[in-house]
């Protein structure tokens, strides 16, 4: 056995044993009293810190194995090769099932240890139960890595070069997408732990715990959003189909925790502004973590077909048991719910619209969306069990569902912003102003016989809400209040409109000889010549085209890459304009050396990414200012 393999397996085993020690001694601490309980708790806490450090050491060891081409480790041989650039060697660490699970496990341990270190000493039983629940989850993850998915398995026989990374994964966005997603997934553990500790001990959560819940939910939503958006960007520029979201089971599984976490965040706002929504919070806050486990189960069990899945793996059954255990803790939390769990200020005076009801509807829509998308994702499995055949909802089903619910949410964003405005000022004038802007935008966007009515309607509603959010932002800036919600909501409104417009794309496929032109979206695309390039053993071949409009001209080069191992990948070329993208993919060489290209006009794509960035920026600001928000009255 190689030294790296030996050391890595030893570190994994040590992490498992330390987590087990922490879980058992934290449980012991919650069952005891006095000095013994305190010593047991401190030992368990120290064990988690040590496990986190060893986990980082093991991760660094695996990264080193990839960077130094240590093919004695089977995982390195399966996903890396000598010719792979260093940054892709790094991303190859989490390209496989064992590597990505290892990364997630390490991130969970580090974040949990960070939370333990930062959380102020409160009730001893609360701390002990929180530590035992969190440690038990860490035991589960480390057990998967010791008994089932072993990242440090040695390569038998030893090989001198690896298979290499799938060409589709050799993309910048795929380098950062999995770590961001896993940080988001892992951060959802903290709300799960906090709610479990509150309900299992019956200790009323004070402002400090409320603040922790809000901060960690914000942090998790921020990173999950980053993970989703980077994944969507990768899909847009790498997969070559021109879309960014295909309602694939794995994509759906990643967005389910987002919907529920956003609903949980609004429940926390409900506690603050209306002194209600306690049950909503207890029910919703732990769910994103369970849904993250479900996402992992979908990706690794092979139960649902997806381009993102790792195929069939034995880890599925273990994950199912893990999910069942977490569901049990969640159900116990709900059963043990008491009204006095959260102490929040009751300050509902000074609002024109009932903000409480708007928050309730926001929650209902988000949870309903999550439920429908969840059931639709598992529909092939449900139908298979019930009728013996496989049937999956079409993409149109999801598109219709999301377009209707997205418009409703956009309307509620506007109404919620107006509802949160203080009583002074001319409220009716502001309301009428919002409606007028909405109607004008609807009128501009409405195009009978051309654009779909629902896109124009969404445009009107988004404009109404946009003005309302701007008014609220202005008030908040004047009063020095938190503006993170306003920024995130602005981003979401832009996202809704951009997503609606981007769905109405125009496609032209043509076979072109040198000098031939096609016209799409007001741009002229001219085929210049066939260009080839070879770098680091990768041969690239594709047509060089010029995208031109008026005096503006830009050269683009979509190409096919042929890798040394015989695999190939298609790389698209995109011109991003202010209002539309020109998206060109190379489909091959036809008769008489004519090239076949597909050109697409994708409206509002820039604004889609701007909206997503603003949403993430808002949640990041919310996370950074969460402490101040808790203290705000």
């Amino acid at each position, binding site marked *: *056995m190689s030294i790296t*393999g*030996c050391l890595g*397996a*030893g570190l*994994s*085993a040590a992490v*498992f*044993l330390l987590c*087990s*020690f922490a879980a*058992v*001694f934290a*449980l*012991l601490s919650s*069952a*005891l*009293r006095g000095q*013994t309980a305190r010593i*047991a708790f401190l030992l368990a806490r120290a064990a988690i810190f040590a496990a986190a450090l060893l986990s980082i050491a093991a991760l660094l060891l695996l990264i080193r194995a990839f960077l130094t081409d240590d093919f004695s480790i*089977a995982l390195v041989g399966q996903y890396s*090769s000598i010719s792979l650039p260093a940054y892709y060697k790094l991303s190859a660490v989490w390209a496989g099932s064992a590597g990505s699970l290892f990364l997630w496990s390490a991130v969970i341990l580090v974040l949990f240890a960070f939370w333990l270190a930062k959380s102020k000493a409160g009730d001893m039983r609360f701390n002990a139960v929180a530590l035992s629940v969190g440690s038990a989850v860490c035991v589960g993850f480390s*057990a998967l890595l*010791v*008994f089932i998915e*072993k990242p440090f*398995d*040695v*390569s*038998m*026989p030893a*090989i*001198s*070069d*690896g*298979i*290499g990374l799938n060409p589709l994964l050799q993309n910048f966005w795929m380098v950062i997408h999995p770590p961001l997603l896993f940080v988001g997934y892992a951060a959802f553990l903290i709300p799960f732990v906090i709610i479990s500790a509150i309900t299992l001990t019956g200790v009323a959560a004070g402002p400090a715990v409320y603040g922790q819940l809000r901060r960690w939910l914000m942090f998790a939503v921020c990173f999950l959003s980053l993970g989703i958006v980077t994944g969507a960007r990768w899909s847009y520029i790498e997969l070559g189909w021109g879309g960014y979201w295909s309602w694939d089971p794995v994509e759906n599984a990643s967005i389910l925790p987002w919907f529920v976490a956003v609903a949980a965040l609004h429940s926390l706002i409900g506690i603050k502004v209306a002194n209600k929504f306690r049950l909503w919070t207890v029910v919703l806050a732990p769910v994103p973590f369970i849904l993250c486990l479900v996402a992992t189960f979908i990706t690794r069990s092979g139960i649902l077909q997806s381009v993102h899945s790792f195929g069939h793996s034995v880890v599925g059954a273990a994950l199912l048991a893990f999910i069942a255990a977490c569901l049990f803790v969640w159900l116990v939390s709900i059963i043990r719910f008491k009204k006095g769990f959260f102490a929040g200020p009751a300050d509902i005076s000074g609002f024109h619209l009932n903000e409480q009801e708007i928050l309730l509807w926001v929650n209902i829509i988000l949870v309903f969306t999550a439920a429908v998308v969840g059931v639709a994702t598992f529909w092939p499995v449900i139908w298979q069990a019930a009728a013996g055949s496989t049937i999956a909802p079409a993409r149109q089903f999801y598109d219709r569902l999301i377009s209707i619910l997205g418009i409703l949410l956009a309307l509620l964003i506007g109404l919620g912003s107006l509802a949160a405005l203080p009583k002074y000022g001319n409220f009716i004038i502001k309301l009428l102003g919002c409606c007028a802007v909405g109607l004008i935008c609807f009128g501009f966007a409405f195009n009978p016989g051309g654009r779909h009515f629902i896109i124009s309607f969404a445009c009107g509603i988004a404009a109404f809400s946009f003005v309302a959010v701007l008014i609220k932002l202005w008030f908040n800036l004047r009063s020095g209040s938190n503006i993170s919600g306003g920024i995130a909501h602005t981003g979401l409104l832009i996202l809704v409109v951009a997503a609606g417009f981007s769905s109405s794309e125009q496609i032209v496929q043509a076979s072109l000889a040198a000098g031939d032109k096609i016209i799409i979206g007001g741009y002229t695309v001219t085929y210049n010549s066939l260009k080839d390039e070879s770098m680091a053993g990768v041969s690239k071949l594709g047509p060089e085209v010029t995208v031109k409009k008026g005096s503006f001209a830009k050269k683009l080069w979509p190409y096919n890459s042929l890798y040394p*191992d*015989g695999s190939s990948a298609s790389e698209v070329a995109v011109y991003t304009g202010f209002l539309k993208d020109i998206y060109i993919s190379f489909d091959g060489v036809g008769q008489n050396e004519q090239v076949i290209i597909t050109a697409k006009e994708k409206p509002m794509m820039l604004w889609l990414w701007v909206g997503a960035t603003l949403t993430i920026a808002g949640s990041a600001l919310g996370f950074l200012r969460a402490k101040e928000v808790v203290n705000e009255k």
Partner: protein
Amino acid sequence: MKSRRGVFPAVVFCVLFPVLAVAEPNQPTVKMLHIFVQANENGVSFENIWVFEREDVNLPWEVGIDLPEGATALNVDEPNETESLKAGRIVRKKMPADSAMGAVGFSFIMPKNGDLCQTLIKSRYSIGSIVVFLSTPAVRLESNVLKMDESLTRRSDYAGIYTAEGLAGGAKIEINLKNLAAAGGRRIEIICLAGFAIIVIIALIILYYSRRTAVRGETTNEARSK
């Protein structure tokens, strides 16, 4: 006379031996041999495909393959045309008289001796090429003639592809499989399980003594208050 009697067979042998050795004009040869190897807990499965060829056609021909010592669970691909002889130690197949090529497919299981499985295949015929496809990762294959083809292995889903070419009739092919990683992996797993059990036992002992101390303390306090 005595010496002549001794010389005559020797002369005959010397004249005939080269003829016998070179001749057998219709002797089949193995064009290629593919062996798919997969190890599991019970043993190692060997799926064989022997492809034979001969030079002349329109003569009846048959082939016989000796199974290695210890092989069990013989399963032939075309039971109507293939038969096993001598208590399942030889696989024999009559080939179509009008064909120059024919294939024999069968599988058997070799038992494991601890973490080691040793197989010795003796071929009656000369072999053009052998390819062994090893499916089980974390298994090391060692052989006297087979060498791993890294290029083929990298492009395949197999844990290892081993090849050899141009073996003479009567060649012995050793295939030794060693399950090294499993032994190491199991050791780690056993240490982890034992460690977990020790942690639980220590916690239970602490819990037991803490409770007992607490009960004693309460009893003493009660007695004092009385």
